[in-house]
Every structure is written in structure tokens, then in C-alpha cells.
């Protein structure tokens, strides 16, 4: 146990402490709050670097190092919490602290004009602390607690501009929807505790992810012939799906874009939504366990793969028809999260997490770029009204293009390698080839809609001055006040520098996990990496790579054909794709009407249920209660009558006699001091006489 492992708790606690101090500070101390949050994050980043170096140094074996501390006693047992350090944790720590640090710095510029600057940094730091807590947790319970704090801060930050009704509604929606998933998570956790008696992941052989517990779990069967482990894993996956916006529970994520853009970048692109993926990776042993010796992948992983594939295509399709710059990125995020899930399902931890890491960089780059664009356009978010920004915002344009190419999976960019990894794994999946094709289709769509966005935003001429800037742009309050024609401008250095750094990573990060040098994969699996170009010629790698590159080029070409060939003249002109397929486009534009569907079914069901409850409450239960109370009232009236008639009159009589006696006696008390003194004098005489009489006898 080295120092860093012992004190790993500092990494999440420092930002939390910063958050606590910020919460106590006055709202005027802007610089202090920002520097506190950034400073704590920087220290956490340094600590994460130490941790990473430590893991790198002790590479041998799947070195999971844990520190467990007893929390409190339940019956005869101590409930233990703890933290752990393994390659996955160290990488996640590094990613979260680094991206978080950059986004913190970026926020200083982005939120510079906001009144609640201090509160923002307080929430942000609290989020960072909780997220780091999720990452280092060695206990499902601790993970769950931090998970919920992450959810809370997500709620707070989405609703940061709570005065806007959309933001408040979005915050509520995000909270409720993720809680539906968390309910499954909680049930799974309780079940797991019931079965294994521990929630620690690794506890020297006694942890719930270790062999004995898993063997115990897989041996038991529950309904539908599922093994207990599978059931628990699926329940926990519900939570992950909620957090990561997988298909049935994805509806909150696009709406979450109502929050400030750095929040979107940090929480809803890079870290929190990836927490679901991380959770699956963390409990991968539980997910993947099968009856001994069975070569087929477990049912749980199968579900994960299918859900992920569906989500990937689903999100990409919707993204095609969106006009809000952040919504496009949000659906893109959903799609990419689907890829990660699919990767986990079909290929294992390393495949999914590799995409998570690269995605974190390029997606936060894209979001920050979008934020920069929004900032430069004074709050405009509709891509139809942008255009021509490549000239006025060159740095943002360059960074954004790099992020876009990485997201598309343009060859040699980081997204290319990680997406390829997933496609390759899907291609070689033993169950079905469908996920591969779905993924490939998603990749095509990704290239297409990103090209579309890029052309809309940066190409052509500026359309900002057009149209009344009214209803659509309430999303960002920066420019709400002034109505003067807006001149797009480059953002300050505090915003562009993080962009450039992130862009560099977005371009280069993929090289740590190429098939030729799969350092990342082997690091996660705890094996030494080896370098060989020969790996390209391995089983099906090159064909998949070539085909995916082809798909990307196809998507780019399609995008160019539809949007780039003919510059978009005006914000009012309809989308070229909508002209080709109006019905399909509007369906996609309404996001497959999932929201409406939910509104028509679930919400209405809920309303009907509550109406019935209300009726029952009002007439049935209330009637019963009232009947009882009337009975009690009758009793009380009777009692009152008895009291007044019988007890009181007797008591009054007694009181009056006492009062009469008192009045008679009070005649003695004349209020005259001297009359009292006369009596005292008389008493003195009597006393002296007594004494005299006594001495005489």
C-alpha cells in the first residue's frame, strides 16, 4: 500500500470541500470561488496523475488495490465502505480530472457575466467530487451514494437558470427519468446484498465481484430461467441505462441541454452519462459471469449489446433532423453511448472504455466548441441562423472540425480507432451480426449529420441578423437583453485554450489503442502491450477498418452533396433533406415521438391512477374518518354537558365560598403600611409582656 492508495479519498474530497466552502461564501466572491474550485480540481488532477503513475509502475497483474474502512454496524456486521485503485479507475480519474479541469477553466470565461457565478462553481465542484467518488468507489453502496449526488448536481445544474421554465422542466425530467433507472439499480443492489452479504467489490476474496460470490450467484436461478447474477446485473443495468440515456430512458438527455454549455460538456457528454458505461465496466465480472465453462456470452451482456446497438442507430437517426446545435450533439452523445454499451456487450471492458475515453475528449471538445459558438453569437443556438463563422471564429472552427472528424471516425483521428475497435468486436460477435450492421449504419449517419452541422454553422454567410430573434433563443440568456445586430466574435483565450488542448487530444488520443499497439486494451486488462504492425492483418481487422472508413467518406460525401454543394441562403429556407423526405424528416425531427408517446401512455396512466386515488381519498376514506370523528364529537358533547352541569357548579360553589372567606380576610389588609405597623407595635407589647411574665415566674 503506497501513499497514493491510502490517500486516494483526497481526490473526490478536495472538490467537495471546495464546494462546501463555496456554498458558505457570499455570492460576491467570484474570483475566490473560481480559484478554489479550479485549484482543488488541479490538485485532484495531480493526485490522479500520481495514481496513474502508481498503477503504471505496478503494472503486473490485474492489480486491484483496495482500502476498506468500516462505516457503521448493522446488527452483528460492519458495513464497510472503501476505495480502490485499478487501471480502469486510474484512467477514469485522469480523464475526469483533466477534462473537468479544462472545463472549469473554460467556465470562467463562459459564465463571466452570470450573477450566480459562485453557486455555479459550487455545484460544479460538488459534481466533480461526486463523480470522482463514483470512480474510486470500492463499494456498490458508496458508488450508489455518489451516483445519486451526481444525479442531484445534474439536476441542479440543468436547472441552473431555474427562472426559465424550460430549464426547470428539463431538470425535473432528468431527475425523474434517471430515478426510474436508479430504482432498478437500488433493487439490484439490495438483492445483491441479500444474496452475498457484502457490497464491496473486492475485499480479499469476499467481495461481491470475486469468484466465490459470483459462483454462488450464478448457481441460483430465478424466474424465466435467469440466473440470479443475470437478474441482478440487468437491474443494475437499468440504472446505467437511465444515467447513460439508453433507449427507453434517453428522453431526458436532449432536454438537459437547457443547462449552461460547460455543464453539457462536462456532465452530459464526458463524465456523468459515461458513468453508466463505467458502472457496467465496473461490475463487468457480474455482467459476464456464466454458468461454469459456457463459452457463450452471458444474457446480461447480450441485452447490453442489443440495447446499445439500438440506441446508437436511434440517436444518430434523430440527430440528422435537429436544428439546435446542442441538441444535435446531445443525440450524438446518445448514439455514442449506445456504441459504448455495444462495445461493452460485444467486446469487453477495454473496447467500451476506450471509446468512452476518446469520446469524452472529442465530445467535450465539441460541446465547448458549441459553447464558444453560442457565446460568440450571443446566445444563438439555432444552426439555421448561424453560418459563416469559420471566418470570424477561426480557432473555434479548427478545433470544432477536429472534434467533428474524430466523432465521425475519420481515419487516424481518435474516434476512428475506438469506433473501429467496437465495430471489429461486433463483427466478430458470436451471437449475431446485426449489431455490426447497425453500428456501421450509425457511423454513416454520424458522418452525415456532423457534416450537415458543420456546413450549417461555419460555411456560407452569416444569417444571424435574419428573422426575429424571439422564441427560439431563450435557451441562453446571454444575449437576451440586447437586440442590436450581432457580430460573431472569437471567444476569449480562457475559452479557446481548453479547446485547443482538447482538440490535440481528440486528434492524437486514438494512437494509444491502435490494433498495432493496443496499449490501452492491454493496460485495462493488465497485460503488457506489444507493438506489431502485423496485428492489422489479424482476423478481419483490415476489412472492417476499410469498410468503416468507406462509410465515413460516404457520409461526408452525402453531407457535402446535400448541404455543402449549394450554400444555405437563408435561415427560413427548409432543410434539403426535408425536401427529399418530408414525413421521415419530421418524424426524426420529433425524435420518433417518444416524448409524445410517453406523454400519451405513462403520464396519462399516472394521471388516471392519481385521479382514482384522489376519488378514493375524498369519498371513501374521508367518509370513514368523518364518521369516526362525528362519533367522537358526540362523546365530547356528552362529556361537556356533564362537566358544565355537574362538576362545574359544585366547583363554583366551593370557589365562591373560598372567595368570600378571602374577602372577609382581606379587610385586614388595608394597604396602609402604618396600620400594619400598629399591629406590629401591639404585638411587640404583647411579646414584652409575655417575656416579663415569664421572668417573673
Amino acid at each position, binding site marked *: 500500500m503506497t501513499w497514493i492508495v491510502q490517500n486516494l479519498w483526497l481526490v473526490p474530497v478536495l472538490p467537495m470541500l471546495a464546494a462546501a466552502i463555496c456554498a458558505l461564501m457570499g455570492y460576491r466572491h467570484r474570483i475566490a470561488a473560481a480559484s478554489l474550485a479550479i485549484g482543488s480540481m488541479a490538485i485532484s488532477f495531480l493526485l490522479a496523475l500520481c495514481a496513474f503513475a502508481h498503477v503504471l509502475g505496478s503494472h503486473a497483474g490485474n492489480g486491484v488495490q483496495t482500502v476498506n474502512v468500516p462505516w457503521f454496524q448493522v446488527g452483528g456486521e460492519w458495513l464497510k465502505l472503501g476505495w480502490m485503485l485499478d487501471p480502469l479507475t486510474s484512467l477514469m480519474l485522469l480523464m475526469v480530472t483533466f477534462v473537468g479541469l479544462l472545463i472549469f477553466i473554460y467556465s470562467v470565461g463562459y459564465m463571466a457575466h452570470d450573477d450566480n457565478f459562485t453557486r455555479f462553481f459550487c455545484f460544479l465542484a460538488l459534481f466533480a467530487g461526486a463523480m470522482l467518488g463514483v470512480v474510486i468507489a470500492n463499494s456498490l453502496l458508496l458508488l450508489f451514494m455518489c451516483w445519486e449526488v451526481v444525479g442531484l448536481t445534474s439536476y441542479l445544474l440543468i436547472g441552473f437558470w431555474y427562472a426559465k421554465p424550460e430549464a426547470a422542466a428539463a431538470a425535473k425530467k432528468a431527475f425523474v427519468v434517471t430515478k426510474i433507472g436508479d430504482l432498478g439499480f437500488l433493487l439490484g443492489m439490495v438483492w445483491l446484498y441479500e444474496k452475498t452479504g457484502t457490497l464491496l467489490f473486492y475485499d480479499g476474496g469476499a467481495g461481491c465481484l470475486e469468484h466465490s460470490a459470483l459462483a454462488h450467484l450464478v448457481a441460483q436461478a430465478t424466474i424465466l430461467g435467469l440466473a440470479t447474477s443475470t437478474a441482478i446485473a440487468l437491474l443494475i443495468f437499468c440504472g446505467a441505462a437511465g444515467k447513460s440515456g439508453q433507449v427507453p430512458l434517453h428522453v431526458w438527455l436532449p432536454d438537459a441541454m437547457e443547462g449552461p454549455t460547460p455543464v453539457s460538456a462536462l456532465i452530459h457528454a464526458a463524465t456523468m452519462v459515461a458513468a453508466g458505461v463505467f458502472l457496467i465496466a465496473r461490475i463487468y465480472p457480474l455482467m459476464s459471469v456464466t454458468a461454469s465453462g459456457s463459452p457463450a456470452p452471458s444474457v446480461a451482456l447480450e441485452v447490453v449489446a442489443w440495447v446499445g446497438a439500438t440506441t446508437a442507430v436511434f440517436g444518430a437517426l434523430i440527430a440528422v433532423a435537429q436544428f439546435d446545435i446542442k441538441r444535435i450533439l446531445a443525440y450524438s452523445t446518445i448514439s455514442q453511448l449506445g456504441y459504448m454499451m455495444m462495445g461493452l456487450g460485444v467486446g469487453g471492458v477495454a473496447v467500451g472504455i476506450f471509446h468512452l475515453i476518446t469520446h469524452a475528449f472529442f465530445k467535450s471538445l465539441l460541446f465547448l466548441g458549441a459553447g464558444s459558438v453560442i457565446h460568440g453569437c450571443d446566445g444563438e443556438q439555432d444552426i439555421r441562423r448561424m453560418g459563416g463563422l469559420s471566418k470570424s471564429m477561426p480557432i473555434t472552427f479548427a478545433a470544432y472540425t477536429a472534434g467533428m472528424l474524430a466523432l465521425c471516425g475519420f481515419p487516424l483521428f481518435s474516434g476512428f480507432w475506438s469506433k473501429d475497435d467496437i465495430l471489429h468486436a461486433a463483427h466478430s460477435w458470436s451471437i449475431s451480426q446485426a449489431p455490426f450492421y447497425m453500428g456501421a449504419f450509425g457511423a454513416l449517419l454520424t458522418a452525415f449529420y456532423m457534416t450537415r452541422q458543420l456546413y450549417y454553422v461555419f460555411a456560407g454567410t452569416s444569417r444571424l441578423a435574419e428573422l426575429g430573434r424571439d422564441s427560439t433563443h431563450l435557451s441562453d440568456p446571454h444575449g437576451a437583453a440586447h437586440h442590436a445586430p450581432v457580430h460573431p466574435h472569437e471567444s476569449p483565450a480562457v475559452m479557446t485554450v481548453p479547446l485547443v488542448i482538447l482538440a490535440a487530444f481528440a486528434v492524437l488520443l486514438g494512437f494509444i489503442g491502435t490494433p498495432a499497439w493496443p496499449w490501452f486494451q492491454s493496460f485495462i486488462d493488465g497485460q503488457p502491450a506489444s507493438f506489431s504492425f502485423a496485428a492489422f492483418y489479424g482476423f478481419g481487422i483490415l476489412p472492417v477498418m476499410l469498410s468503416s472508413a468507406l462509410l465515413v467518406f460516404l457520409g461526408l460525401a452525402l453531407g457535402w452533396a446535400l448541404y455543402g454543394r449549394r450554400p444555405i441562403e437563408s435561415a427560413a429556407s427548409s432543410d434539403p433533406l426535408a425536401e427529399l423526405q418530408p414525413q421521415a424528416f419530421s418524424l426524426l425531427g420529433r425524435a420518433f415521438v417518444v416524448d409524445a408517446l410517453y406523454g400519451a401512455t405513462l403520464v396519462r396512466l399516472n394521471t388516471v391512477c392519481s385521479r382514482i386515488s384522489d376519488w378514493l381519498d375524498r369519498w371513501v376514506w374521508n367518509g370513514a374518518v368523518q364518521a369516526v370523528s362525528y362519533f367522537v364529537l358526540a362523546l365530547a358533547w356528552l362529556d361537556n354537558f356533564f362537566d358544565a352541569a355537574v362538576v362545574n357548579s359544585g366547583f363554583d360553589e366551593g370557589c365562591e365560598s373560598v372567595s368570600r372567606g378571602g374577602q372577609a380576610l382581606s379587610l385586614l389588609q388595608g394597604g396602609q403600611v*402604618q396600620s400594619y405597623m*400598629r399591629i406590629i*407595635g401591639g404585638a*411587640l*407589647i404583647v411579646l*414584652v*409582656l409575655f*417575656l*416579663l411574665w415569664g*421572668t417573673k415566674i
Partner: protein
Amino acid sequence: MTASFTILAAITVAGMAAAMGLRNAVHCVLALTVGFAGIAALYLQLGAQFVGFTQVLVYVGAVAILAVFAIMMTQSRPSATPAPRAPLWAAGGAVAAAVFAVLAWAIHSNALSVQALPPQPEAAPSATVQQIGDALMHRFVLPLEIVGLLLTAALIGAVVIAMGRREEMK
């Protein structure tokens, strides 16, 4: 029963009687100081020097002045109260007279037992300041402390009572 005692007793009684009988309250207090001074002289005659001077310091110097101040502050007009005697004054007078009669009778009737005392010293017993200080600091130290406490409490209490409420001051 020396001449000096007779003279001092006469002065004291006259002063005290005047203090209780005069109409004008200020005259009463001035007569009272004469009475107090007479009592102080009696103390001196009895050999209690310290007590005598203390009597002058406390009663003439402080209590009388205090009473004068109180009269000044309570009497807006210098005219005497219309009827200085309380109602039922006869009853009060009778009680006072009866008290004196009873006490005098008691003193007189106990003359024998008084004479049974050991022969009285002709010279006054010494009560120097040194002795009194010693007694106060050793035998009577607890009462002394209590009296100190009492005086402090009385000081604060008198200030608080006499100061009144702050609104009244304004």
C-alpha cells in the same frame, strides 16, 4: 447618672422628638441630624470612639443628606403637607406610648437582675481601632464579607430602582 449624660440625652431626645414632630420635612431632617449627633456623642461618652465617628459619618454625612435629597426630589412645593398626622393617629400614639411604658416597666422591674451584674468598670473598656480591625478580620470576617456583599447589592439596587425606566428618563 452624670450631668453630661443628662445634657446629651436631653439634646438627643429633643432632636429626635423635633424630627418626628415638626411640620416641615426639611426641618425634621435637620433636627434629626442633631439627634444623630447626640447619639454619636453618647457613643463617645460610652467609650466607643470608632462607632461614634462612624455614626456621624454615616448618619449625618450620608443618611441625612440622602433624606434631604429625597425630600427635595419628592416635594415640588416647599409647603408642609396639610395634615402631617395619619388617620387613626390616636391609636398610633397609644401604641407608641404603650410600647414605651412596657419597655420602661421592663427595665425598671429588671433593675435587680441588672444590679446582679459584675461591678461595672469605671473607665470605659478599650475599643481601639486596632482591636476592632482585628475582630473584623478574624472573628467577624464572614459577617464583614456578607455586609460588603449587602452594601454592593444595595448600591446597585438603589441605582436601578431610582434610575427608573429609560423611557422615563427621556
